[in-house]
């Protein structure tokens, strides 16, 4: 439980225990001293009581002495001690009475002696008066009655009783005082010794626990300060790099600012060009519409050409059919000529002229066949050309259709271009506006980055100070460890 106490609590407990020991010693010493003082007072009072009673006896003796001197001489000068004593006896008796208050024995003695004193004083005064009035003898006779002596002896006996009583009381009180003094001295000596031991033990315990815990704490502080030193070093390095990066960022942002302004100018130019493009796109759309109409006319012409070409192909086929007939006729003519030749050969000389005619017919048939072949070749060429033309025309028609469709797409594209260019114009204006806003924002960012760079620089300085503080803390913890644990620090 003690190890869980705080430093202040331990110190408070230690100092409290020491203070308790000292308080105990102080109380005991105070009570002893008080008792000693009371005993001293009682002793002094006993001395004073004895002195007052002796003074009272002395004053009574002075009064008797003056009475005797006057009685012997009749000279009033001898009455001076008597008169002085009579004047002092009353206050002295009052004082004695006050001092005897609370002491029943003394009060009894005083109550017994007080009429005796009054009677003695009355005897003294009567004898003095007798001397003065009746002379020496009358006075001597009165004195010789021993009444005065008896009163005086009673007074002396009472004073002796009081003195003896006070002497015994005084002896007892002195013994008490000595005993109290010995007790007080013992208390002070042994109490102080015990207090020193207790305080020493408390101090040893506190020192040991605090040394251990403060040593551990100092060790932690040392390691923490080392870590803090390393962290401060890293932080300083990082902040230097951050400052460098901030400088580069500032440069980049400045370039970005210039670029943003250029972008804004370019966007403005783009907007202008886009407006011009929109006009061009509208013009192009109109031109495409006209071209599309022209292509429609071409499409109709091509359809007519295809129809003509197909008709030409049919005619060519008909020519081919006719040519087949001619070719077959030529072939049949040739066969007939051959047969005529055979017949002429069979007719002998009579058929020679017939053979000549047949030969001419055969030649003519050969020529017809040859021409037919040429015509067929030409017809084939024509038909091939027609087919090619038809195919080309159909291809052209398809191309025209495709062109018309593409022109339609181009017209739609021009319309889209016009719309897109309008959108582009708006976008370029928005870009211009946004870029201007961006420029303003970049300027603000630049200012903020400058502030951040300044803050980084200040933080770097602070990190340097932190590093210095960490170094000082490490040095301080080392010194503290050396103070707390010299052997460990060594």
């Amino acid at each position, binding site marked *: 439980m003690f190890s869980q106490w705080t430093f202040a609590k331990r110190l408070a407990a230690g100092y409290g225990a020491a203070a308790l020991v000292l308080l105990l010693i102080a109380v005991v010493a105070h009570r002893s001293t008080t008792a000693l003082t009371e005993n001293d007072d009682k002793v002094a009072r006993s001395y004073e009581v004895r002195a007052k009673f002796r003074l009272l006896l002395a004053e009574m003796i002075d009064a008797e002495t003056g009475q005797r001197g006057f009685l012997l001489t009749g000279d009033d000068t001898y009455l001076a001690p008597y008169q002085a004593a009579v004047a002092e006896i009353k206050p002295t008796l009052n004082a004695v009475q006050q001092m005897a208050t609370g002491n029943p024995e003394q009060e009894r003695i005083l109550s017994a002696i007080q009429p005796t004193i009054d009677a003695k004083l009355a005897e003294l005064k009567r004898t003095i008066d007798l001397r003065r009035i009746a002379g020496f003898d009358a006075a001597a006779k009165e004195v010789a009655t021993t009444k005065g002596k008896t009163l005086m002896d009673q007074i002396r006996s009472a004073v002796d009783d009081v003195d003896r009583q006070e002497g015994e009381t005084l002896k007892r009180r002195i013994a008490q005082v000595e005993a109290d003094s010995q007790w007080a001295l013992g208390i002070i000596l042994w109490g102080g010794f015990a207090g020193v031991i207790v305080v020493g033990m408390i101090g040893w315990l506190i020192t040991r626990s605090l040394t251990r815990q403060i040593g551990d704490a100092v060790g932690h502080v040392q390691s923490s300060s080392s870590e803090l030193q390393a962290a401060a070093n890293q932080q300083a390095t990082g902040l230097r790099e951050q400052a460098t990066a901030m400088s580069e960022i500032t440069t980049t942002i400045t370039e970005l600012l210039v670029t943003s302004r250029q972008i804004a100018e370019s966007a403005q130019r783009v907007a202008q060009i886009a407006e011009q493009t929109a006009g061009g796109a509208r013009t192009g759309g109109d031109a495409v519409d006209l071209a599309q109409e022209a292509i429609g006319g071409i499409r109709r012409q091509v359809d007519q050409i295809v129809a003509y070409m197909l008709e030409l192909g049919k005619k060519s086929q008909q020519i081919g059919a006719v040519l087949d007939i001619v070719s077959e006729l030529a*072939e*049949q003519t*040739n*066969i007939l*000529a*051959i*047969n005529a*030749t*055979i017949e002429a*050969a069979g007719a002998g000389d009579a058929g*020679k*002229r017939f*053979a*000549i005619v047949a*030969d*001419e017919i*055969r030649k*003519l048939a*050969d*020529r017809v066949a040859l*021409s037919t072949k*040429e015509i067929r070749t*030409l017809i084939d060429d024509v038909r091939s050309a027609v087919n090619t033309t038809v195919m080309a025309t159909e291809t052209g028609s398809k191309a025209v259709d495709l062109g018309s469709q593409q022109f339609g797409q181009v017209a739609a594209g021009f319309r889209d271009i016009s719309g897109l260019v309008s959108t582009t114009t708006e976008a370029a204006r928005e870009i211009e506006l946004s870029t201007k806003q961006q420029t303003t924002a970049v300027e603000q960012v630049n200012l903020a980055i400058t502030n951040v760079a300044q803050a980084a620089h200040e933080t770097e300085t602070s990190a340097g100070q932190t590093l210095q503080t960490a170094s000082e803390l490490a040095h301080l913890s080392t010194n503290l460890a050396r103070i707390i644990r010299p052997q460990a620090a060594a």
Partner: protein
Amino acid sequence: MSDPPAAVTDTAAALRQAFDRSFAEARPAAPPAVEELLAITLGDEPYALRLSEIDEILAARRITRLPGGGTALLGIAGCRGTIVPVYDLRALLGCGRAGPARWFAMTADATLAFAFETLAAHLRVPHDAFVAHQTDARQRTPVRDFVRLDDELRPIVHLPSLIEALQLQVPATGNKRNSER
């Protein structure tokens, strides 16, 4: 309409001029010694027939097939009111098969006809253009001589030998049938 090409015009003019010249020239006193040939094509191979061995060239007509008779006998056909057997000249000569026969060549005695595909031309060839067959088996083959035409030797089918061979096959076939019975 554009004018016809110059080549066609020239050809027409040449034909007209040749036709007119044939009437303008005098008749030849004696025709040159030539032999009439008929250039034909059997499959892809060129052949020639002598007109003197042919009675008539007829366009091919419907042939009625007959059972038996071998691959060369196509059937019988009616020609000028007479039923004649028609033989495939291409099969007889062992040439490759091509399209259907378009022409009949009637033999000189008009007893049978040889069918062939293509009639190429009517040739008048001098005698010195003929080349005789050099092998010893000349008497047994239907081709006994050739005619040289533009550095090409065209075989001349000897129809009488073909007819003789066919006539020799017919009794044999008839005897065979009799023996089977």
